[in-house]
């Protein structure tokens, strides 16, 4: 029994997928651009320059903060095979809770900042737990309960800021501005929440690799029947994973409010589609945190570069959305044939 596990073979196997994907991505990009009468080289260099040049890297990071955050929101449960479609709602309630805490809580600024972050995380967590509880207690599939709970949550938030808790003077559906000392500082032009997101990434990776909880999560993701046979408590696991994911989503909402908008603006959190890009990144990484986070960062760079490309050339920004879709498709394909046993 000596299976082929030579070094070169293994390295090729682990690099094959990204290599093929990169090649397919570039070919598709060049083809599409050439067919629509644009110089592919000019467009693609505008894309790369617009996202990674020193002058533009801050834009990319600012986009990556929420996108990578929402990648974790999807990846954490996905590692156990659970799909969390409720990221939008969890982010919105977190953002609103953070904004209200920072504006209305009569405590000194820095303390309000910390409490606002905590409130955001808790609010997001509660909403996610509610969805999870729907499944563990009443058998409503999480796929449905998490998605459906998002709509009323966003709706209530929208109502609150356009009425009772809104900044009536502005005529817009938004809260008042946060006090100056309850805001996250900018770090070289980047939302100060970047530190928190990096810490969250490290925490998720640590839990995944080093803890009993992380191991059990992977086991469940690989084989549910086996997990319950060896005595892993699936409902409890679902609650914990969703509670954690919701807390991250709430934190992302809080970070956007405290470090970027400085108020809760209706719709501003959802229109960029961070939740869905994050979900795609998590799917590309199959919930494995390092791969998912890298994919999330890559998507953030791609999307940021897309803005630049739209400015410099006539290529609309949806081009990057298409690229993203191509990448997800190729990466989630099973290629190389079935390598399983035939008996």
């Amino acid at each position, binding site marked *: *029994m000596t299976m082929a596990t030579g070094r070169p073979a293994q390295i090729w196997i682990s690099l094959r997928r990204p290599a093929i994907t990169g090649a397919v991505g570039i070919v598709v990009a060049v083809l599409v651009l050439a067919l629509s009468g644009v110089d592919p080289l000019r467009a693609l260099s505008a894309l790369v320059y617009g996202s990674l040049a020193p002058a533009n890297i801050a834009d990319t990071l600012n986009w990556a903060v929420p996108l990578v955050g929402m990648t974790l929101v999807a990846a954490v449960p996905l590692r156990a095979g659970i799909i969390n479609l409720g990221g939008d709602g969890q982010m919105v309630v977190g953002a609103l809770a953070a904004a209200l805490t920072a504006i209305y809580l009569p405590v000194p600024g820095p303390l309000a900042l910390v409490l606002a972050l905590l409130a955001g995380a808790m609010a997001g967590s509660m909403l996610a737990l509610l969805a999870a509880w729907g499944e563990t207690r009443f058998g409503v599939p999480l796929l449905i309960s998490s998605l459906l709970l998002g709509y009323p949550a966003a709706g209530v938030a929208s109502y609150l800021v356009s009425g009772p808790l809104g900044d009536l003077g502005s005529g817009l559906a938004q809260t008042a501005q946060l006090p100056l000392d309850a805001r996250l500082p900018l770090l070289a032009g980047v939302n100060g929440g970047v530190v928190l997101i990096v810490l969250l990434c490290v925490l998720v990776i640590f839990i995944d690799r080093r803890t009993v909880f992380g191991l059990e999560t992977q086991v469940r993701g690989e084989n549910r029947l086996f997990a319950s046979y060896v005595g892993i408590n699936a409902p409890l696991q679902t609650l914990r994973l969703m509670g954690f994911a919701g807390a991250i989503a709430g934190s992302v909402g809080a970070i956007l409010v405290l470090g970027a908008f400085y108020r809760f603006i209706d719709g501003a959190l959802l229109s960029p589609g961070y939740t869905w890009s994050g979900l795609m990144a998590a799917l590309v990484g199959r919930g494995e945190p390092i791969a998912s986070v890298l994919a999330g960062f890559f998507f953030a760079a791609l999307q940021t570069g897309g803005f630049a490309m739209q400015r410099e050339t006539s290529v609309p920004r949806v081009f990057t959305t298409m690229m993203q879709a191509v990448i997800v498709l190729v990466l989630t394909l099973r290629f190389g044939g079935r390598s399983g046993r035939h008996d």
Partner: protein
Amino acid sequence: MDNILEVENIEKRYGDLVANRDVNLAVRQGEIHAVMGENGAGKSTLMAILFGMIRPSAGTVRLRGKPVQFASTLDAISARIGMVHQAFKLFPSLTVWENIVFGAEPVRGALLDRKAARERVAALARTHHLDVDPDAVVGKLPIGMQQRVEILKALYRDAEILILDEPTAVLAPAERDGLLKIMRELAASGKTLLFVTHKLNEVMAVSDRVTVMRRGEVTDRMVTADTTAAAIIRAMTGREVSHEVVKPATARGRPLLEIDRLMVGNAAKPALDAVSFAVHAGEIVGIAGVAGNGQAELVDAVTGRRVIDGGTLTIAGTRANDLSLRERRGLGMAIVPEDRHDVGSVAGMPAYVNMSMGKHRAPPLSRRGLIDRAAMRRHAETLIQRFGVAIQGPDTRVGTLSGGNLQKLIVAREFDHQAPVLLVEQPTRGVDVGAIEYIHRVLVDERSAGRAVLLISSELPELLALCDRILVLYEGRIVRELAASQTDEKEIGFYMAGGKGA
């Protein structure tokens, strides 16, 4: 010589692994030719080559004297070879005849000639005494019947050579006997059968000649009538394997698993009807019964997969009716499940994870919620050594293991718990002789160590060899308790079929 099929110097490599090396095989027209070998010997690889599923790295296949090269199974089918796979390839929602004619339908104009198709299937079934209803929906048929549909499918395409890859592995004893009879009739009507198995009694019962493989090579060729089971086993394993299980005398201790008037299912037709028995320390109690008479429900009730509707379940002195599986395991129960691929292991993860599960929450494998991978690897290495699992190392994914080795790995993990109660389901189904011998030995060792073992098996010889007592389940009730030393297959079979006691 009238060899219909000849294989010369076939070789098949998967990277460094040689699945078939210098294989020669000669099959005569109209014979039942058995291909035997332990798991991983390369039998399925050879059959896949013959059926055009994979291409050999070297060597030639000669059919009716002429060299052939199959690009796909379609080529093999048009060369009148048919194959019945271990996992059936049928559409469960279609009827028997629809499945059989699918892809080779008789047409009238542009339309499927339903009537002609159905007739042909019915006629074919009659000629070969393959008693199946052409209009039955395949998904509702028992496994044995589905297998007949697969055979008919091959015959419908005019197969002259029929390859059966471990056809009996999925069958209950009665179904197996039916299949062996069908095989004999097919051979009598001039078909040639290639019969892959690792069950000795089947080979002795039906085959004309045997080709034995070990580690990718042919180790022996014999005429069945002139050989012995011992000689075949020696060729398969390369050593002497004793079939005898030596059971030392043990003192029966206190009851560790107690089941009292257990009810499962609705009152009108309960799946388990007031089942009562106890398994004591130092004994192996076997459950015999035709599949579907309550074994699955009994296991589900004991493991907590199904709610207990009445009666009590007591594990090591504690009432366990309402406990989760985790809590039941905590009371001292280890389980070797029937389905080792989907329940007993996680194919995509390394051996050390598979072998640590269940012990991974406590030192030395983890401390304060942090896992210690080095300790897990050491733990796995120890068990791999002790139980002789043939695997590269603790980091190898278990999805690549053969049935026997995977079973050893699961047995190693579960027995290492030293739990007082062992629930063991079909421990040797689809496992090769070498591993069977080993698993039987460790089961008896567990008995000597004072465990209470509940053994559910469809192999009567296994129950007879291992058990102290055998309980026969029929329609959800225990209809008979037999002392293993004072009964035989015939008596057990009588009660399994619903026979009333004297």
